[in-house]
């Protein structure tokens, strides 16, 4: 089998990806170990979280990741406008995530719950906010890539930029796939 040596996209983004994953991994582990000493506290407040809204968010991110895969597929056979459509769909899904998450945050704040409320919420806000920032960054990257794709900057032969943006976006999705069950579900 002709195995590629390097993952898709610019190698530099993969170093970023590894670094970001490292930070999140440490955060996840910290959450889990802290929870072990405060099981009651974590269990009680976890129930206050809205899992329905989180489901919407999870589905939005998974779908947007899928759209990005379709976009890369499209450009790899030269279908420029199809690629752009898939990317726009992915961005739209990403924006849904951001809007929904913002609504969730607004709801918390209106109930007087914030980063300093207790240890569980400290982790909840830290983890989700940190992730949220990465979703924003991902949407920005995808937008840049979409614009360039729209202006004819990519082709079947050369579309490293799209693959680079795609890889970053998948990382954002990947992190959420662990974050969601860890914080919202596992008890």
């Amino acid at each position: 089998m002709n195995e590629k040596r390097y993952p898709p996209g610019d190698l530099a983004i993969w170093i970023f990806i590894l670094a970001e994953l490292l930070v999140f991994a440490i955060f996840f582990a910290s959450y889990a170990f802290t929870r072990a000493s405060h099981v009651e506290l974590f269990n009680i407040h976890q129930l206050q979280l809205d899992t329905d809204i989180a489901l919407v968010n999870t589905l939005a991110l998974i779908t947007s990741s899928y759209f990005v895969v379709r976009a890369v597929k499209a450009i790899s056979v030269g279908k420029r406008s199809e690629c752009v459509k898939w990317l726009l769909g992915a961005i739209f899904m990403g924006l849904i995530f951001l809007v929904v998450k913002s609504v969730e945050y607004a709801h918390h704040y209106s109930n007087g719950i914030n980063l300093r409320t207790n240890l569980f919420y400290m982790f909840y806000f830290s983890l989700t906010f940190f992730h949220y920032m990465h979703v924003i960054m991902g949407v920005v990257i995808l937008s840049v890539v979409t614009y360039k794709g729209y202006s004819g900057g990519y082709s079947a032969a050369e579309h490293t930029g799209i693959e680079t943006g795609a890889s970053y976006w998948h990382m954002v999705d990947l992190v959420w796939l662990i974050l969601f069950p860890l914080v919202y579900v596992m008890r």
Partner: protein
Amino acid sequence: MKFESQKVAMPYFIAAIGLFVGQILFGLIIGLQYVVGDFLFPEIPFNVARMVHTNLLIVWLLFGFMGAAYYLVPEETETELHSPKLAILMFWVFLVAGALTILGYLLVPYAGLAQMTGNELLPTMGREFLEQPTITKIGIVIVALAFLFNIGMTVLKGRKTVVSLVLFIGLVGLAVFFLFSFYNPDNLVKDKFYWWWVVHLWVEGVWELIMGSILAFVLIKTTGVDREIIEKWLYIIIAMTLITGIVGTGHHYYWIGTPEYWQWWGSIFSALEPIPFFMMTVFAFNMVNKRRRNHPNQAAVLWALGTAVMAFLGAGVWGFMHTLAPVNYYTHGTQITAAHGHMAFYGAYVMIVLAMISYSMPLMRGRKAANSNKSQVMEMWSFWLMTISMVFITLFLTGAGILQTWLQRFTETPQPFMVVQDQVSLFYWMREIAGVFFLIGLVVYIASFFVGGEEATESKARSSV
């Protein structure tokens, strides 16, 4: 040396070394005062000597950074410096202002200095490392602005390279964050919070950009490795610096009265701050291994490799040792901090300036590439003397710090500060001896500038790796 205006770096480097000597002399004074409490009292009390020691360090490093910029930016941008005259003028302004400030510290009681310099109009004095009178601080801002203008215009005029852009961003950051030294809130928590916006965001932030870009420059010149490869490494390194270092500021916010989440954020992000330094080490050794030539200036290569290693050890490893909140709870403000601080500053910033001087001075003095073998050997001796001395200083202070933390904080029956200081005094004596060897190394370093002889060539160059 390709452009005449690069020569303005020379006075900056000479002043830097001169102030470095002053810094070490005062370091020896305070080191001795640790164990002979009334040494030079009351003429030069500890707190005054300490201010002189720390302020000289920062000022000479600033001279070094400016010299490095004046040397490398014209070469990178392939155009003459915008205004060599302005550079020389600012040199004298900075030097005189600095000298007057140091004299002020030494000759006038601090409160009197504050009064004399009109501190009450805009109070900025009285904080560690930022003891300078407000007028000095304003002077620093003016010098910095003129410097940035000069470098900025040069970069705008000429070829834009990753090295020069990263350096420029780092220098702009240095100037911007220095402005926080003017913000002096009454609230003690806020005071401390923002103080670190100068100190941390300097040495664990924008100064790393400066160090990285200078290291990249020296490696490009001495190894002949493709610029693109080196520049890509530089991007990744500074990205890691900013990703870890910005929120990593939180490791200074554990106990000053800020919310508890800082103990988590600070611990997690700052734990990763060694990564860029680790990368710099791999980067430096990798580039030298892949080199396409044996550059005649092997001393410069030695400094370049050495700075990466010592920075990783001092800033990265020693920093990591006391960065996690549960550890820092016990070690905060002990000799562990001093140990880390000394090796970190030496490894990252002293050595990168010395590396740059090592590379550029011979060229500015008319050599084609490097000094004579004899001179380089002497310089390499000074490298080992200073570096090994610093390692011992750090080890002794670490020992003092561990014992201090244990006796003063961790045991069931903690002992008072001064009682513990008595018990760690042996470490202080040993540190002082190591400090003397460091000074010897510095003297050898200076002497190497006066050793002449036939220029080393590529074939005759003694490889240091």
